[in-house]
């Protein structure tokens, strides 16, 4: 065997030895990385479920807020109608009475004005609700963007694809569906906590 060939073989052996040396360092790191991914997967799956469920609830919440504004506006204007009607009647009475009764009627007129001005609360609360609605909509947009970003990760690498796929499958599993239902029930219970049905009211009076 020529001396050059022996040198080549020695070089190759040295390269293989270096490769295994790097491998010795990389393998524990990869092991750690896989344990980390395994540990974090349930967390991401849960976060994904929470994101989906919370995002689904937002449009319903914003609709309810809009309903509140509309209902209070209608009620307030009914009160204003009645106040206008009472005020007109008092004006007619004021024209035919004198002395103490007239003073009394004028005082009542003044109180009606105070009530009318106090009804500004409806517009003020309505604007605050609208502000809250805008915040909720902004959160909904962010949630939607976040959910879309999962799809983006899926397209970038094959490992990303596999991870996202397993998260999606886990999110749609039977156990998770049960979790979603429990969450939805919990939300409904919290919402209904302070509600009382007409039957319950009637029982209280019986």
């Amino acid at each position, binding site marked *: 065997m020529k001396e050059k060939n022996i040198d080549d073989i020695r070089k190759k052996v040295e390269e293989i030895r270096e490769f295994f040396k790097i491998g010795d360092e990389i393998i524990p790191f990869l092991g750690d990385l896989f344990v980390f991914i395994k540990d974090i997967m349930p967390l991401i799956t849960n976060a994904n479920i929470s994101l989906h469920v919370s995002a689904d609830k937002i449009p319903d919440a914003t609709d309810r807020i809009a309903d509140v504004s509309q209902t209070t*506006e209608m009620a*307030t*204007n009914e009160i*204003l109608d009645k106040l*206008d009607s009472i005020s007109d009647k008092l004006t007619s009475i004021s024209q035919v009475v004198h002395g103490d009764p007239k003073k009394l009627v004028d005082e009542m007129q003044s109180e009606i*004005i105070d009530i*009318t*001005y*106090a*009804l*500004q*609360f*409806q*517009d*003020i609360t*309505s*604007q*605050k609700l*609208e502000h809250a609605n805008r915040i909720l909509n902004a959160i909904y947009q962010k949630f939607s963007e976040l959910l879309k970003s999962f799809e983006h990760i899926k397209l970038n690498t094959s490992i990303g694809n596999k991870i996202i796929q397993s998260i999606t499958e886990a999110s749609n599993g039977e156990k998770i569906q049960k979790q979603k239902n429990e969450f939805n029930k919990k939300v409904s219970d919290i919402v209904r906590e302070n509600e009382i049905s007409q039957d319950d009211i009637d029982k209280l009076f019986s």
Partner: protein
Amino acid sequence: MLDKKVIFVDDSLTMRRIILNALKKIGFNDITEAENGLDALEKMEKREFDLVLTDWNMPEMNGEQFVKELRSKEKYKKLPILMITTRGMKDDVITAVKLGVNGYVVKPFTPEILKGKINDVISKL
């Protein structure tokens, strides 16, 4: 004040009714309502007004855009404008002053405050 023509702009039906009542009690007879800045501009094209009362937060065209639009036109440069709004932060008032409003009332207001501010705005001009 009986001869002054006033237009007030507010998207809230409740506020429009309250302000309409207030303006009648103060002594205004010629009162026009508008639901937002755009609606007001259309009505102002058809006739002249001596006083504008406007809300800030409104759809279509808000109070800020509306006042900016008015002040950009020569014929509305000196028209008295009173802003009536829930926005009570210092920065909001500074913005309104820079826009060229002549008075600023924060909701909720009392009849006395509204009357006083309207008198202030009209007497300055």
